[in-house]
């Protein structure tokens, strides 16, 4: 069965919005995402999912040279960073898009759907 990467991207405005969220708003959103995750598992579509710590906590490693080089910060300066993701199994793109639209409503953010390479 095809697998899809459902990613949620945060830009600076979105990050500020998140930080300004009240405790109640936060709990409501976590509740929505939790219920969505439960549905993914119940229907056998769940592979993996996770939310990521802020981009400032990123570290890059480059071992293409002689010695691995470790640097603080993201791979590339960008206005948008990956905030969280789901990996799901779905019969086809229509099924994946239906999951993505439920996921987008649950996490209150835009969701990008990208197919994995199949072997």
């Amino acid at each position, binding site marked *: 069965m095809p697998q899809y990467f459902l990613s949620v991207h945060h830009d600076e405005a979105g990050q500020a919005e998140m930080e300004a969220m009240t405790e109640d708003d936060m709990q409501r959103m976590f509740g929505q995402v939790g219920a969505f995750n439960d549905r993914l598992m119940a229907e056998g579509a769940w592979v993996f999912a996770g939310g990521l710590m802020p981009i400032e906590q990123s570290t890059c490693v480059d071992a293409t040279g002689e010695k691995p080089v470790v640097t603080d910060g993201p791979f590339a300066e960008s206005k948008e960073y990956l905030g969280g993701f789901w990996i799901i199994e779905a*019969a*086809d*793109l229509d099924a994946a898009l239906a999951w993505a639209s439920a996921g987008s409503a649950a996490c209150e953010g835009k969701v990008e*759907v990208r*197919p994995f*390479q199949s072997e």
Partner: protein
Amino acid sequence: MTSSIERIFREEHGRVVASLARRFGDLDVAEDAASEALLVALERWPVDGVPPNPGAWLTTTAGNKAIDRIRRERQRDAKHQAALMISDDTPHEPTGMVEDDRLRLLFACCHPALALEARVALTLRLLGGLTVAEIAAAFLVPETTMAQRITRAKAKIKGAHIPFRVPAAADLAERLAGVLAVVYLVFNEGYLSSAEDASPVREELTDEAIRLGRVLRTLLPDEPEVAGLLALMLLTDARRRARVAGGELVPLPEQDRGSWDRELIAEGHALVRACLTRNRPGQYQLLAAVNAVHTDAATVADTDWSQIAALYAHLEAIAPSPFVTLNRAVAVAELDGPEVALALVDPLPLTSYHAFHATRADLLRRLGRSAESRDAYDAALAATANSAERAYLTRRRDQLGG
């Protein structure tokens, strides 16, 4: 002979590719096999004669070519996925199933996950059987650009697993609207080409859109919007001969109604009547009804403007858009005068749309406000590259009194 074989091939292309795409699950295999079958037909038909069912012949021949190719690839690479398809050797069915295949292919080509321009290109290539060079010429982009656009779209269909499926009833109306929009876009680009160097009317595009409209009508006879779109295209196309004279666009009120195509009008009117009995109005049906009112009038003076204004008001209610309001204003001008119409037009957010300025120019002219009318004609000219429309607007502007 060669040209008649090519015509048959183009007509059957959608059917052949759709059937092979279902059987082999791969658009490239389907398309390549269809092209190989054409080569065989070009060699054999002039000698043996055209077979009684050329579509079935092409599908069978293309199917054999596809199997040959998959066998060759399997020998080269035992793990090749496509080789698995060979065990799914479903027998060829020339009717019924094949019609459904074309519809499935059409919904895949017009999938909302593809960019609009890619949907148009894929539909013309796979269902319309136009060559990449023809599509590139129709949209005035380099052939390599168009080839890339089509290749990318096909790769996305394959890689993202866009299904070859007629959507479930719950999604059908919305997805069908996307398909109809692609067909109507092809028609409109043909009917009033936006391109500077192209001829004002591109029959290869209007004809192809109507052909696709007829195919859809056969496949989805119970969808009134499908009938509505076909009626709209037929009633618009019926006026094609009267639309350009001496390189200049002739607006509807000034057209020679004797040269309208009566046969297309009769067909369009019958479709509009059939839609009315279903009582499930939609935007294409309402636009078709507007055109039915126009083509019903023996002279401009006989036009039932109140009916047209009412139809546009209905359309505004179900699909509000400034373009619809602009059209309603044209009818209002005939009923309540240019001043009332101008008040409707002026606030519309359409300043980059040529027809907005052309409509304003005409209303201002009728109100005797020549200087403003001239400015509006200039704005309309700046917003269109269509040579026939430019010729018309220029003459009207230059006829304005001081």
